[in-house]
């Protein structure tokens, strides 16, 4: 008899999908909101329980769906890393919804609110499935589900520019998933399998014999390019600022903090479980990832510096942060330690905590300033909601990489991972440059929100601001405080988390 907790990953995916379907038939947005929050909380709890079962024992397990035995059928594989990631993803999803609650019910028309929550639940389901799946084709199907629900999250705030941002996002995503599907087809053609363990065996045999080297390389390249487009890897990031910057606060937080990460987690699993890092290094794929990552770190920050719209600035900064993650993946095996991979996984957590905090605070700051979004009009807004001001400051300092904040630890680990590779100089230089660039736009933003506005601007804001928006926002305050605490936990108590990640990576 296998232990009962092996059912938890499947159960949480199933719960999220069921909640999504139920939301679609609910009439009231508030009811759908409650159902979504309940499901997400339960899923967080389930993932945490799973982590509690897996980590102390150092276990990972394969859960077969249906009765079809291994090379066929469908399977889930869960280890400490997957459990940790899904717990954090679910928790952050709930906090993002909580933090953006007022904006959400303001931006989305009442008739469409239940459908919005359907899409939120589908996003949650696809994130969980992308994290847990042990089958490449299931990965593809959930990539597409995630695409549709993410696009719907963007267009929920029904303005013209948003619709156009959505269609650009949709077409870029379609390119990405088309490339991924083609890569998958080629891989299936040369190996004959879809389940990751069988694929890994077949790929290893092909790599050893040197047969079909070209189709194999093409398949790897296509799959990585496809996932790269979807997670806004550097040359393919142009769709991101408009889509993430224009959406309602909760959507921006979910999209920037979580949805991008789902694809990266699948990519990490593919890289480690199927293709294995030594083979990827031999093919030169890790070097390509490294270069794109480094370029993205600089290019994302440069475009953020030129941006005055606060949410688009945060969205551009996501491109830079995704660059960090790809840089860590590109460091590959280093001298046999895979430290870059660990650093990348940690950075996924840091960014998943930090960016939703920044987006929620930015949304709140602009709500108390008459829904203005340019930094010029947000001057002094931190005095109108101190929690939002402090939260934004904490998020910004973490992004820059000040010690005691989460961002510092991941930068530290990226730097130390680069020491055990032969690319130390270029990586360290780029981290230094990127830190300076981050400071160049986050420091002025923080100074702007804490600057006392002149008399004229204050009167102007007093006239335009909605008194209801100025009132104390409890749900935002709770969520901002928890996320702020999360940034500090990641920055100070990082040792146990890194231990979980390390054991998770080795059990991947």
């Amino acid at each position, binding site marked *: 008899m296998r232990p009962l907790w092996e059912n938890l990953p499947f159960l949480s995916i199933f719960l999220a999908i069921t909640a999504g379907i139920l939301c679609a038939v609910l009439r009231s947005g508030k009811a759908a909101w409650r159902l979504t929050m309940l499901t997400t909380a339960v899923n967080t709890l389930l993932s945490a329980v799973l982590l509690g079962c897996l980590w102390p024992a150092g276990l990972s397990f394969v859960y077969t769906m249906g009765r079809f035995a291994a090379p*066929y059928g469908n399977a889930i594989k869960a280890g400490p890393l997957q459990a940790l990631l899904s717990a954090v993803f679910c928790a952050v999803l709930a906090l993002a919804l909580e933090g953006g609650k007022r904006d959400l019910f303001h931006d989305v028309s009442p008739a469409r609110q239940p459908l919005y929550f359907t899409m939120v639940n589908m996003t949650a389901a696809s994130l969980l499935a992308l994290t847990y799946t042990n089958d490449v*084709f299931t990965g*593809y*199907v959930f990539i*597409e589900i995630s*695409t*549709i629900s993410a*696009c719907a999250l963007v*267009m929920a705030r029904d*303005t*013209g*520019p948003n*619709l*156009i*941002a*959505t*269609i*650009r996002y*949709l*077409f870029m995503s*379609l*390119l990405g998933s*088309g490339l991924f*599907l*083609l890569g998958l*087809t080629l891989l*299936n*053609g040369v190996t004959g399998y*879809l389940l990751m363990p069988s694929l890994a065996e077949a790929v290893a045999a092909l790599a050893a014999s040197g047969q079909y080297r070209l189709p194999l390389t093409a398949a790897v390249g296509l799959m990585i390019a496809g996932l790269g487009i979807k997670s806004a890897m550097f040359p393919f990031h142009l769709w991101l600022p408009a889509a993430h910057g224009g959406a309602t606060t909760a959507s921006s937080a979910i999209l920037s903090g979580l949805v991008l990460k789902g694809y990266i987690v699948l990519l990490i699993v593919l890289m480690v479980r199927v293709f294995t890092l030594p083979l990827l290094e031999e093919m030169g794929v890790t070097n390509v990832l490294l270069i794109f990552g480094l370029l993205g770190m600089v290019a994302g920050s440069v475009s953020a510096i030129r941006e005055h719209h606060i949410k688009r600035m945060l969205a551009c900064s996501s491109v830079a942060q995704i660059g960090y993650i790809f840089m860590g993946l590109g460091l590959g095996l280093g001298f046999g330690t895979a430290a870059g991979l660990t650093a990348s996984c940690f950075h996924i957590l840091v960014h998943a905590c930090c960016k939703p905090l920044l987006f929620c605070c930015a949304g709140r700051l602009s709500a108390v300033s008459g829904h203005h979004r340019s930094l010029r009009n947000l001057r002094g807004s931190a005095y109108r909601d101190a929690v939002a001001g402090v939260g934004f400051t904490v998020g910004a300092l973490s992004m820059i990489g000040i010690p005691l904040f989460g961002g510092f630890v991941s930068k530290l680990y990226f730097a130390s991972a680069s020491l055990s590779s032969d690319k130390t100089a270029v990586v360290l230089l780029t981290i230094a440059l990127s830190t300076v660039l981050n400071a160049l736009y986050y420091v002025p933003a923080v100074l702007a929100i804490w600057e006392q506005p002149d008399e004229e601007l204050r009167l102007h804001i007093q006239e335009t601001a909605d008194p209801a928006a100025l009132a104390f926002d409890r749900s935002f305050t709770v969520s901002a405080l928890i996320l702020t605490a999360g940034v500090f936990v990641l920055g100070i108590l990082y040792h146990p988390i890194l231990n979980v990640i390390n054991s998770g990576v080795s059990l991947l």
Partner: protein
Amino acid sequence: MLETLLENRFSVTAVLLFGIGFLNLLLQQNLLKKVVGFNIMDSAVFLLLASLGYIEGGAAPVVAEGTSPSLYINPIPSGLVLTGIVVSVSITAFSLALIQRIYRRYGTIELDQLRERARKEDD
């Protein structure tokens, strides 16, 4: 040369179709044409996938008494094609609905004009 092409006729056609679809999706300014491009691209992948599982002279993989399993075509790629078609149809429906919405608001579906208009609205 010609013989190799004929032998790999499915793959060659698939590559051509994928190229056509990909370029349409990437370069067309008309949103509807982009959707058509996406559909061509997906059809190419389905053709490739179906041809990979096809065995010359094989029967449909329906198990019945008296037939030898060595004569069936591989059913897995066919199953994948079916799933893929479902995904592609739903994405197409979604994007068509979105395009309709954009047309109602702006009266055009040319991407360059739309971006111009969006920039003006944003200022």
